[in-house]
C-alpha cells in the first residue's frame, strides 16, 4: 500500500469512539459508530490504517441507499391495541414480509425477483418485461430540474442494466409536492417554492424522457403541505428483454469496460447523502445535471452489442458510482481497477473522487478479452466513449491502482457482508377509527361539493403535465393517460397500455402499467394506506382490461426517520399489509426500493413527511383488442356500479374539502375484490364492457362525472340504487337509509368500478357477475346533463358535462 499526494492515509486504528464519530461526520460517510468500529477492527487485523479511498468505498457500499440497512436489519417491534401490547422481532423486515409473499406465491412466470436492477415477469415464450421504480427526492428538493432528470435517467439505466440489458418501452412518474398556491412568505428559508419545484421537476422528467424517446405514460401526483420542504419524486421505467438475456455472470479474466459519460466531480456522496436529512448547508456537490443524448447513444449501441453476445454482464453506475457498480459485478470474483484510465471531464480529481463520483450516463460491462475490440468498435461507431479500466480477477479482492500505486486492497467478502446489522426499535399504536357525524346535504350543497372535488388539486386534471411528456413516442401507447371519446375532450385514464408491436413482431399481447398511492389514508392508518395502494393499483389495471392473475407489483416506501420509534412502527405496519395483500390477491412483489430520512429541520424544529407507499403494478394482457377506456361510449347504454359502497370517508378528498375530522379509512376486502377483478377480466375478454372506470378519490360522483365529461355526454344516476354496507358490520343491507346521499356519492370505498354496458349484453354480463355485489344505477344520455338523483331523500343534482369538464381542467393550467 502506497500513499501518494493524491491519496491519503486515514488514521483510525488509534481513534476512540468519539473520534470515530467525528471522522464519519466530517467526511460525510454516514457510518454509525458500530460500523466505524467494525472497520477499525478489520484494519487492525490487516495491521495498517486504511486509505481515504478504502474508507469511502466502504461508506458507499454500506450506505442505506445501497444496502437498505434499516429494512433488512433487526427491528424490535411493539404493537399496542386497546391497551394490550404485543411484541415481535424481525431479523430482516423485507425478507419476512414483502419478499416472503413472493417466495410463498412462487409464480413460475416471475423471471427475476428482488435480485437484479429490476424485477422481470414473463411477456411471452421468448421475452420478459422488466420494471423498476426509484426515488430521487433529495436532489430534486435542491435542484428540481437536474434532480428529476437524473432520477429518470437513473431508473432508465436500471432497465439498461438488468440482465444483459432491456429495451425501455415506457416511463412512469409519481410526485408529491406542497401546495403550488402557497403564499411565498410561508415557504421556509432555503426551500424552493412548491410551484417552482413542481415546474422544475416536470421539466426535468420531460426533457430527459422525451429526449430518450421513451413515453412517460402513467403517473400520479399528490399535494400536501407535508411535502413542501421535502418533495417526493418517483420515476419508473419498463422495458422488454429476451428471456435468454436475463442471466449475467462475470468470469475471472473478463475486462472492466466503462461506457458512456465522462467522470467529473458531480454527485460525490450521493449515496451517503440520501440517508442524511436535508438542512440549509446540504452538500452541493450532490447535485447533478444529466445529458440524455449520451444515455440514448449508450442505449442504441449496447443493445447491438447485447444481441451479438459480446459481453457477459452489465450494470449501471448509480449511487456510489464505479465503486458500487464494479463492487457489485466483482463480488464473487474480485477486481482490479486502474483509476487513472477512467475518462475525466476535467483534471484535478482525486482517485477517491473518481471512484465514487456519481457522474451520469455511465454503464459498466464485463467483457471477455477476445470480444473487447469488437465491443469498443460498436460503441465508437456511434461516438460513444468506451474505455477498458481494469479486469475481474479470481482473488476475491478489490484492488485499486492509481499511477502504478496500489491505493486500496480489501476483501470483497468484508465489503459486501461485513456491515453489522443494526437493531432498531419500533412502536405502533392502533387507533380506533370513528364514523363521522352523518353528512346531511341538500342538492345545492352536493352539487357544489362535486365541483370543488373535481377542482381539488388531488383530483383535477394533470393535463398540463401529461401533455408536456411525449407519451406517444414509439407509437405503442394504445391506452393513453388521457382518454376521450374524441380529440377535443379528455378524462383521466386508469392505467396505460403499451402494445410493443415494433419490438415483438406480430404479437397480440400488451403490457399494462398502473399505480396506487394515498398518503392521506396513511396519516390515519398506515396499514389501510398500504392495502388500499395495492388494491388501487390492481383496480386501475383491471379497469383497462388486465388479468390480475398475470400481474406483479413494486413497492416504494418513502418514510421519515427510522430512528423515530413511531415512524418506524408505521412502516412495519405498512409492510405487514404488503404481505397480507400480496398473499390474498396472489400478486407477487418483484422489486422495490425505500427512501428513508425524508425530513427537514428548520429552526431546530423537525418536519417529517406524511409517509407514502407507492405501489406500481405491471401486467401482461393476452389480447390488445380486449382493452377498455373510461369515457362513456353511447347514449342509452346502462351504467352499473360494481362492488360495495361503505361509509368510508376517512382520509377522503371530500373530508379534506369539508374539514371533516372523523371517518373510517377505506378498508380492503381482498376476497370480494379479487373475485370481482377476475370477473371483470372475463367480461372484458368477451367484449361485454363498453367503458370501465375505477372508483377512487372523490368516490362515485367524481368517477361518473369523469366518464361523462370525457365523452361529452350526460348520465342519470339513481343514488338509491347504489348498494351499501351501512357500517363496517359484515351484514349486508340493500336498504341504504343509513348512509346519506352525500356519503354514498363521495365515499372512497375500495373494490368498486363504474361500467357501461349495452342493453343487449346485460344478461350475459349479469351471468358472469353472479354472486358479486353490483347494481344498475343509471343510463347514459346524449343531452350532456349529468344528473344524480335520490327520490327517497328528495335530492336532484344536475350539471352540464361541459361545466364539470372545465371545473376539472382549470386548476392547474399554467
Amino acid at each position, binding site marked *: 500500500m502506497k500513499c501518494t499526494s493524491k491519496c491519503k492515509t486515514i488514521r483510525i486504528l488509534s481513534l476512540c469512539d468519539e473520534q470515530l464519530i467525528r471522522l464519519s461526520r466530517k467526511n460525510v460517510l454516514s457510518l454509525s459508530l458500530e460500523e466505524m468500529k467494525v472497520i477499525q477492527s478489520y484494519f487492525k487485523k490487516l495491521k495498517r490504517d486504511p486509505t481515504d479511498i478504502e474508507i469511502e468505498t466502504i461508506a458507499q457500499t454500506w450506505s442505506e441507499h445501497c444496502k437498505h440497512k434499516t429494512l433488512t436489519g433487526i427491528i424490535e417491534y411493539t404493537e399496542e391495541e386497546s391497551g394490550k401490547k404485543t411484541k415481535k422481532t424481525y431479523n430482516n423486515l423485507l425478507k419476512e414480509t414483502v419478499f416472503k409473499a413472493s417466495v410463498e406465491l412462487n409464480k413460475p412466470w416471475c423471471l427475476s425477483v428482488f435480485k437484479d436492477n429490476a424485477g422481470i415477469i414473463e411477456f411471452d415464450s421468448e421475452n420478459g418485461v422488466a420494471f423498476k421504480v426509484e426515488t430521487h427526492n433529495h436532489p430534486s428538493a435542491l435542484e428540481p430540474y437536474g434532480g428529476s432528470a437524473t432520477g429518470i435517467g437513473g431508473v432508465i439505466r436500471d432497465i439498461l442494466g438488468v440482465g444483459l440489458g432491456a429495451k425501455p418501452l415506457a416511463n412512469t412518474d409519481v410526485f408529491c409536492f406542497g401546495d403550488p398556491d402557497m403564499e411565498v412568505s410561508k415557504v421556509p428559508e432555503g426551500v424552493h417554492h412548491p410551484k417552482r419545484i413542481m415546474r422544475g421537476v416536470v421539466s426535468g422528467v420531460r426533457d430527459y424522457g422525451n429526449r430518450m424517446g421513451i413515453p412517460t405514460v402513467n403517473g400520479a401526483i399528490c399535494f400536501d403541505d407535508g411535502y413542501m420542504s421535502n418533495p417526493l419524486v418517483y420515476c419508473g421505467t419498463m422495458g422488454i428483454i429476451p428471456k435468454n438475456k436475463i442471466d449475467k455472470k462475470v468470469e475471472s479474466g473478463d475486462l472492466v469496460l466503462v461506457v458512456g459519460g465522462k467522470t467529473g466531480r458531480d454527485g460525490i456522496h450521493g449515496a451517503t447523502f440520501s440517508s442524511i436529512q436535508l438542512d440549509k448547508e446540504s452538500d452541493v456537490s450532490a447535485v447533478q445535471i444529466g445529458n440524455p443524448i449520451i444515455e440514448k447513444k449508450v442505449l442504441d449501441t449496447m443493445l447491438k452489442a447485447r444481441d451479438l453476445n459480446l459481453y457477459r454482464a452489465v450494470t449501471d453506475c448509480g449511487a456510489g458510482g464505479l465503486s458500487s457498480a464494479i463492487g457489485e459485478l466483482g463480488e464473487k470474483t474480485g477486481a482490479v481497477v486502474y483509476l487513472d484510465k477512467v475518462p475525466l471531464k476535467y483534471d484535478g480529481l482525486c482517485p477517491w473522487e473518481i471512484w465514487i463520483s456519481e457522474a451520469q450516463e455511465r454503464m459498466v460491462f464485463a467483457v471477455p478479452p477476445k470480444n473487447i475490440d469488437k465491443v469498443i468498435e460498436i460503441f465508437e461507431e456511434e461516438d460513444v466513449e468506451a474505455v477498458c479500466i481494469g479486469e475481474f480477477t479470481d482473488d476475491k479482492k478489490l484492488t485499486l491502482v492509481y499511477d502504478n500505486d496500489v491505493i486500496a486492497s480489501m476483501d470483497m467478502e468484508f465489503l459486501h457482508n461485513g456491515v453489522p446489522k443494526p437493531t432498531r426499535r419500533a412502536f405502533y399504536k392502533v387507533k380506533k377509527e370513528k364514523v363521522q357525524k352523518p353528512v346531511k346535504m341538500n342538492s345545492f350543497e352536493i352539487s357544489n361539493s362535486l365541483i370543488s372535488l373535481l377542482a381539488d388539486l388531488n383530483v383535477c386534471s394533470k393535463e398540463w403535465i401529461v401533455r408536456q411528456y411525449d407519451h406517444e413516442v414509439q407509437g405503442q401507447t394504445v391506452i393513453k393517460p388521457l382518454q376521450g371519446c*374524441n380529440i377535443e375532450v379528455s378524462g383521466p385514464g386508469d392505467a396505460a397500455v403499451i402494445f410493443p408491436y415494433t419490438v415483438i413482431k406480430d404479437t397480440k399481447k400488451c403490457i399494462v402499467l398502473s399505480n396506487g398511492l394515498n398518503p392521506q389514508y396513511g396519516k390515519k392508518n398506515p396499514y389501510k394506506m398500504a392495502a388500499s395502494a395495492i388494491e388501487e393499483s390492481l383496480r386501475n389495471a383491471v379497469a383497462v382490461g388486465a388479468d390480475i392473475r398475470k400481474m406483479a407489483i413494486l413497492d416504494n416506501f418513502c418514510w421519515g426517520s427510522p430512528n423515530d420509534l413511531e415512524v418506524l412502527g408505521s412502516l412495519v405496519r405498512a409492510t405487514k399489509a404488503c404481505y397480507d395483500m400480496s398473499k390474498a390477491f396472489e400478486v407477487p412483489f418483484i422489486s422495490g426500493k425505500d427512501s428513508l430520512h425524508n425530513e427537514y429541520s428548520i429552526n431546530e424544529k423537525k418536519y417529517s413527511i406524511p409517509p407514502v407507499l407507492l405501489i406500481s403494478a405491471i401486467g401482461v394482457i393476452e389480447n390488445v383488442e380486449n382493452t377498455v377506456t373510461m369515457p362513456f361510449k353511447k347514449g342509452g347504454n346502462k351504467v352499473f356500479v360494481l362492488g360495495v359502497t361503505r361509509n368510508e370517508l376517512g382520509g377522503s378528498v371530500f373530508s379534506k374539502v369539508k374539514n371533516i375530522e372523523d371517518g373510517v379509512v377505506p378498508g380492503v376486502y381482498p376476497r370480494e375484490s379479487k373475485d370481482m377483478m377476475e370477473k371483470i377480466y372475463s367480461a372484458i375478454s368477451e367484449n361485454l364492457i363498453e367503458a370501465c372506470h375505477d372508483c377512487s378519490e372523490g368516490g362515485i360522483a367524481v368517477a361518473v362525472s369523469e366518464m361523462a365529461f370525457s365523452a361529452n355526454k350526460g348520465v342519470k344516476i339513481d343514488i338509491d340504487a347504489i348498494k351499501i354496507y351501512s357500517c363496517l358490520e359484515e351484514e349486508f343491507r340493500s336498504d341504504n337509509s343509513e348512509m346519506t346521499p352525500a356519503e354514498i356519492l363521495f365515499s372512497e370505498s375500495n373494490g368498486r368500478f363504474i361500467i357501461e354496458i349495452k342493453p343487449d349484453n346485460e344478461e350475459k354480463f349479469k351471468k358472469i357477475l353472479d354472486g358479486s355485489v353490483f347494481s344498475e344505477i343509471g343510463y347514459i344520455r346524449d343531452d350532456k346533463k349529468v344528473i344524480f338523483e335520490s327520490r327517497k331523500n328528495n335530492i336532484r343534482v344536475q350539471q352540464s358535462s361541459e361545466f364539470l369538464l372545465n371545473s376539472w381542467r382549470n386548476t392547474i393550467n399554467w
Partner: protein
Amino acid sequence: MKKVKVLVLRTAGTNCDYETQSAFELCGATVERVHINTLIEKKDKIFEYDILAFPGGFSYGDDIASGKILSNEIKNKLGDEVKKYALSGRPIIGICNGFQVLVKVGLLPSPELFKQISTLSYNDSDKFECRWVYLKVEKKIKNESNCIWTRNLPDIVSLPVAHGEGKFIPGNEKFLDELNKNNQIVLRYSLRDGSEPEYPLAPNGSVEQIAGICNGKGNIFGLMPHPERYVFTLQHPAKEGFDSKYGWGKVIFKNAVDFV
C-alpha cells in the same frame, strides 16, 4: 416484384426510427435504419435506397435549436448527395424533427434553391405538447398538388403531434404566396368540421395553420404530426380508422411505397 428499399436516417437523439421502420414495413417495404456516421463514411450508399426518411426525435438533443446540428452536419458532410437524391425525384419524408431538418437544410420548400428560407420556431405556448389534432387535406389541394404522399387521405384526418418547436414561419410574404399558389401547403391544422382552430387544436401558432408542406415536384414532404404513430386503429384515442384495422397514417407511407 422488387422490394422497395427505405433508408431511415438516424443519429444521436433520433427516437422515432423504429415506428417509422414498422410503418414502411407494414406497407411492404424493406427498411434499414442507418446511422449518419455510416452514411458519411460511404456517401454513395444513399443511392441504394428508393425512399429516404428523416424520423422524429431530438437529434443531438435539439441543442441550439431543433434539428439545427443535424441539418448543419448534413449540409456540410452530405450536402451534394442529399441534394442530388432530392432532385432525382425519389420520395423523401421528414417527420417532426425530420421536418425541422428538411426545412433547415433547405430541401423544403425547394431543393433546387437548397437554402433555408423558412423555419419551425418555438410554439406560441412556449412548451412541448403532445396531443392529437385534426388536419385538413383540402380537396382542391389534394387534386391539384403534386404531393405523392398525401393522396387518398380523407379531407379531415387526425394525427398526434408532439413537439416544442413546430410553428411554421415562411421567410417572407412572397414565399408564402408561392407555397399557396403551387399547392405546396398540403396539411393545415383545423377543427373537425374543417374550420379554423384555436389553441390547443392549433397547437403551435403556425402561420396559416401550416402543419405540412411539400416541394413543387411533390416528392419531398415534411410535416410536424406523426403519421407513423397512427398506422393501426388501436393507436387512435377513440379507435377510429379504416378497414377496421388500420390508421390513416398508414396511407401516407403506402403512397410512397406504391409510387416507387
